């Protein structure tokens, strides 16, 4: 189902360019052939429809072929962030109940070798056809969990299909489009590239990794590749607008830029909009649980430097509501994930009325929604979700730690960064905590500030006094 539009394009235009990575490229026929062979290899390993299969590959041709192979076998993919330390990856593999890990070459040392399937090591084959129901799972995307461990968001074929069809229509995607792709496959942004673009017959061009650090070379690459659209994060576009040499690098082919994942600082958006007068700009909004639930086509004349931009209108057939008491944004609609993945089952996150409570503070202002930050403890660090509980549970498990608490402090580079306040035994040190944490959690989860306290500040009712903690950390 999810791959339906892509398979249709394979019939219509098998020789059209599908994927390009550096100087390698493949057409639709070749991509389908790779995916078929991977699906057949998975079936011969005993993978059955609905079963999670992990992807141990960085974004690119091999990873995209592996994802499509998993879907053709009726299974669901679990893309791994290879920058995560091995203990976190091991947790995800176990939590997802993964029986097969697709990768290239030999298995990494931390992984049970019997799970590993080398995608370079199979023969061309056609898989057995499988029935795929709309509600069967397509992907489990892991984010930081408020329970103290990574948490999988289980997303159905139906949900991704609904988003991809809406986005393809909104942006009028066609076989003429050449779309840049930079989102890792464990981020929901990648569903646009894989399913909206390849379902419309366009081509995906993987942005070479080093270019995010070299904005002038990035714009030169966008020009040379005749890129017509790109869905990425605001920080990347802000850098492009600020130092991308755009005055000397006309991006005539660039029809649209879409951004999501962070708040785009309005002054940087104004600079970008001025440099690219012909390019339509879109703000997409939504947590992983909803993919995109809200969008705003940027109206240039309404950009005011000291005002944040709206998140806009309901997207993709979603219904939005703001809780009158709490101000929390509620969502229901076709793009919602099925639930959280727990013990091999999907656990719904909807309330009794079928709404998903996002934890985002929002308001409705003349038909447009506006975002006012997070309500709970969750942080957004460099575009990644970070649950303080996950850092706390790692630190609390260390010897010599009596108790700790993590809060977010505002940061102009990353949006927010975690800060750690901790009560220690005499022999434990901050240096030791740093060392141990770097082996367990990815870089974006590492605390930016450490504070040793005699006791954690508590409210009269015995709960943590986060307000006081913030004052101490910011002092």
């Amino acid at each position, binding site marked *: 189902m999810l791959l339906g539009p892509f398979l249709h394009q394979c019939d219509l235009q098998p020789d059209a360019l599908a994927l390009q990575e550096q100087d390698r490229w493949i057409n639709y026929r070749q991509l389908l052939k790779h995916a078929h062979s991977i699906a057949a290899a998975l079936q011969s390993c005993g993978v059955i429809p609905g079963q999670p299969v992990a992807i141990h590959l960085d974004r690119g041709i091999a990873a995209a072929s592996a994802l499509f192979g998993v879907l053709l076998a009726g299974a669901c993919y679990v893309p791994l962030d290879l920058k995560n330390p091995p203990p976190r990856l091991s947790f995800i593999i176990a939590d997802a109940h993964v029986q097969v890990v697709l990768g290239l070459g030999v298995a990494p040392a931390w992984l049970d070798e019997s799970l590993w399937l080398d995608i370079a090591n199979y023969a061309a084959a056609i898989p057995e056809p499988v029935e795929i129901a709309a509600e069967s799972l397509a992907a489990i995307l892991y984010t930081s969990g408020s329970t103290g461990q990574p948490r999988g968001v289980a997303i159905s074929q139906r949900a991704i299909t609904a988003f991809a069809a809406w986005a393809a229509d909104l942006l009028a995607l066609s076989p003429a489009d050449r779309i840049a792709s930079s989102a890792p496959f464990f981020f929901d942004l990648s569903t646009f590239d894989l399913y909206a673009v390849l379902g419309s017959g366009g081509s995906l061009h993987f942005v070479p990794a080093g270019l995010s650090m070299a904005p*002038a070379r990035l714009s030169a690459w966008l020009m040379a590749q005749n890129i017509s659209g790109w869905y990425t994060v605001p920080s*990347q576009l802000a850098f492009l607008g600020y130092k991308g040499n755009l005055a000397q690098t006309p991006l005539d082919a660039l029809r649209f830029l879409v951004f999501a994942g962070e708040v785009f600082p309005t002054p940087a958006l104004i600079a970008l909009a001025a440099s690219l007068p012909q390019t339509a700009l879109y703000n997409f909004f939504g947590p992983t649980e909803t993919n995109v639930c809200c969008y705003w086509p940027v109206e240039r004349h309404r950009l005011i430097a000291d005002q944040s931009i709206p998140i806009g209108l309901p997207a993709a057939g979603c219904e939005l509501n703001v809780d009158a008491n709490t101000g929390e944004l509620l969502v229901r609609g076709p793009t919602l994930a099925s639930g959280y993945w727990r013990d091999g089952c999907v656990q719904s996150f909807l309330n009794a009325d079928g709404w998903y409570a996002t934890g985002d503070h929002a308001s409705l202002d003349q038909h447009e929604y506006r975002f006012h930050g997070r309500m709970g403890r969750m942080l957004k660090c460099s575009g990644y979700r970070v649950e303080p509980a996950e850092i706390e549970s790692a630190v609390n498990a260390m010897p010599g730690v009596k108790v700790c608490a993590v809060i977010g402090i505002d940061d102009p*580079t990353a949006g927010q960064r975690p800060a750690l306040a901790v009560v220690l035994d005499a022999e434990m040190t901050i240096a030791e905590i740093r060392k141990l944490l770097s082996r367990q959690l990815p870089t974006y989860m590492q*605390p930016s500030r450490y504070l040793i306290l005699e006791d954690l500040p508590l409210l009269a009712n015995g709960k943590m006094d986060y307000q006081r903690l913030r004052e101490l950390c910011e002092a």
Partner: protein
Amino acid sequence: MKEKLKTFIFAELIYHEDPASFGDEDNLLDAGLDSMGIMRLIMFAEKEFGVTLPDTEIEPDNVGSLNKLENWIKRSGQA
């Protein structure tokens, strides 16, 4: 100049490394300096040292360590 850069980087951009043990040749990108960090570092350096750092020279090679950064900014100031 190098000390000013180092102070800014470890106060504003990279937190989880110990600045005292971070050498002038150590790799800033491996330590977690990302594209947004580089952008803020450039804004800081242009203002602080009164130079214009050319768009086309923003490369991992010029921002990869404290020594590389200092050399690049000094070169740009002479141009």
